[in-house]
């Protein structure tokens, strides 16, 4: 039996549009996803904003009721056995909310320890251990309102681990952290993996998923479009080359024109200060450069290079260049 079994899970949301003639509209955030995660596995759920990652995690942590499909955590149904699922899972959502800012870290953890029915004798030892583990031991008596974003995120991790859950859901845990904070947090995740926790990590940072996860599912518009090891997902773009062109002020219509060229598999534009980096995936390699440059002949260009594809390129191909 897998630790997490998800079968055709769906979630629709009802919204209303209009002011006077209000109409109900159904939005499908998750459209029947299925996957399994083995005990002790670190599984990544990758996707762009609005792909359905957080909605999926919220259903698996019993915070949302699915509109279709089923999921089981350690054999317990997330709807029928929600009360049995909750003590066995821990979760953190990206962001700073979900803590009591007027209290210090120790009091936040003491409070949640009581809510998890943890024996006071156990929590007395566990709270200092967790604060040390997440690097907050020296600031444990300061109010949370004075913490940096990274410190609050680490306190979230300590809260999620209070009851020593078998399964952890980490929803974009490094979102908004500075590079040093993000690196420390990734090390914490690695340590948790060494403790044989089953972890579902959502992120849109490819290098993070590549560095941490044993398997990855790419989710786009509520559907899983690929699921495999990072290495195998990278293999799916072995036939492609990536051409990077530095360009100054590319108009949207020119970008659309480039995307529609037959030699272009997919393309994205990344802002880099005052310039943009046009990334083009093509099976033609360097041969495609003259055609691409001819489309940009009115613009000031910088460096033009070709390179081997990465996991990020595989991801871009899978989500259609979004």
């Amino acid at each position, binding site marked *: 039996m897998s630790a997490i079994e998800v079968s055709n899970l769906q979630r629709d*949301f009802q919204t209303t549009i209009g002011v006077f003639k209000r109409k109900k509209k159904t939005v499908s955030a998750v459209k029947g996803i299925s996957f399994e995660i083995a005990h002790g596995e670190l599984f990544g759920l990758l996707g762009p904003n609005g792909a359905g990652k957080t909605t999926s995690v*919220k259903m698996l*942590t*019993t*915070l*949302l*009721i699915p509109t279709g499909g089923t999921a089981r955590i350690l054999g317990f149904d997330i709807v029928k056995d929600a*009360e049995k699922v*909750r*003590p066995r*899972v821990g*979760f953190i*959502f990206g*962001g700073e*909310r*979900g*803590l*009591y*800012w*007027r*209290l210090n870290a120790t*009091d936040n953890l*003491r*409070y*949640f320890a*009581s*809510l*998890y*029915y943890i024996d*006071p004798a156990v929590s007395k030892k566990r709270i200092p251990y967790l604060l040390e583990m997440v690097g907050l031991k020296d600031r444990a008596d300061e109010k949370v309102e004075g913490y940096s974003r990274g410190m609050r995120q680490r306190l979230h991790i300590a*809260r999620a681990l209070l009851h020593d859950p078998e399964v952890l859901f980490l929803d974009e845990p490094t979102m908004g952290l500075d590079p040093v904070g993000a690196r420390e947090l990734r090390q914490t995740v690695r340590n948790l993996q060494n403790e044989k926790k089953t972890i579902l990590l959502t992120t849109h940072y490819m290098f993070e998923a590549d560095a941490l996860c044993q398997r990855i599912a790419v989710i786009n518009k509520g559907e899983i479009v690929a699921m495999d090891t990072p290495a195998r997902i990278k293999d799916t773009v072995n036939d492609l080359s990536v051409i990077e062109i530095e360009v100054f002020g590319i108009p949207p219509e020119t970008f659309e024109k480039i995307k529609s060229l037959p030699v272009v598999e997919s393309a994205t534009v990344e802002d880099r200060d005052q310039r943009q980096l046009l990334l083009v995936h093509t099976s033609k390699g360097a041969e495609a450069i003259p055609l691409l440059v001819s489309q940009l002949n009115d613009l000031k260009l910088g460096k033009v290079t070709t390179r081997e594809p990465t996991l990020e390129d595989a991801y871009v191909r899978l989500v259609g260049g979004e």
Partner: protein
Amino acid sequence: MSGWQKVQYNLRVIFMAFEIELRQSFTDAFVLFGIIVQPMIVAFMALWMLKDQVANYAIFVVVGSAMTGLWTTLLFQGGNSITGERWTGTLEPLSCVPAPLRVVVSGKLLATITQSLFSIVCCYAFISLLMGLPLNIAKPWLFAGSVVLTVVAFIAFGLIIGPLFILNPDVQRFQNGLEFVVYIFSGFLFPIALLPMWTTPFSYILTPYWAARALHAASGGTGSDAEIYFCWAMLVVFSLIYAIISKFLFKSILRKAREDATLNMQ
């Protein structure tokens, strides 16, 4: 986990929620206004209004104005107890713990009421020290018993208000109006006999009415022991009814919030 163990853990949850709520709200100026300043203003006005109309009027005013402070903080803090957690993003983690949310809210309400009991002390000091009026409690033991049952009854009442405000946000828009409706229908500062007869049944289903009646009767000596015991019985009966209703309300709001994705508000 055995039933007794669960009771022990839930008592600990109530104690922790009580402690956490007290620590947080003592830094809130609105709360401090509600428990210290407002009862004094009400007491000052009521003293002049009731000077020649009510026997033993000073203690009547202390109890009545303290009840207004109690009800105000319960209505606003108790009513917003769940909404507040939702806005700070803590309702999601609170909904995913083994401790039932209504047990957590009970601890928070106990803290709210404890702060309000402080109102009685403030009012007592204001009237007896600053205004130099005599304050004698006619039946101290029955008064103490009435205070304990008032606390229980107000917690039960608060357990209905919180989820009701979530289930029907329209009710929350009338929060200020509800404050005065309950002052009047519960007879905090004047007897409900002054109101039209058709309003009496409404007063009877409100625990604050029985609490005010018991406290006034025990403090001013205006009612018999039998009348006070009858009020106690009513407080127990209605508190139980409220507790049963609140259990269903909590179950239904949590189910609805999970269906509508409203546990977290950004």
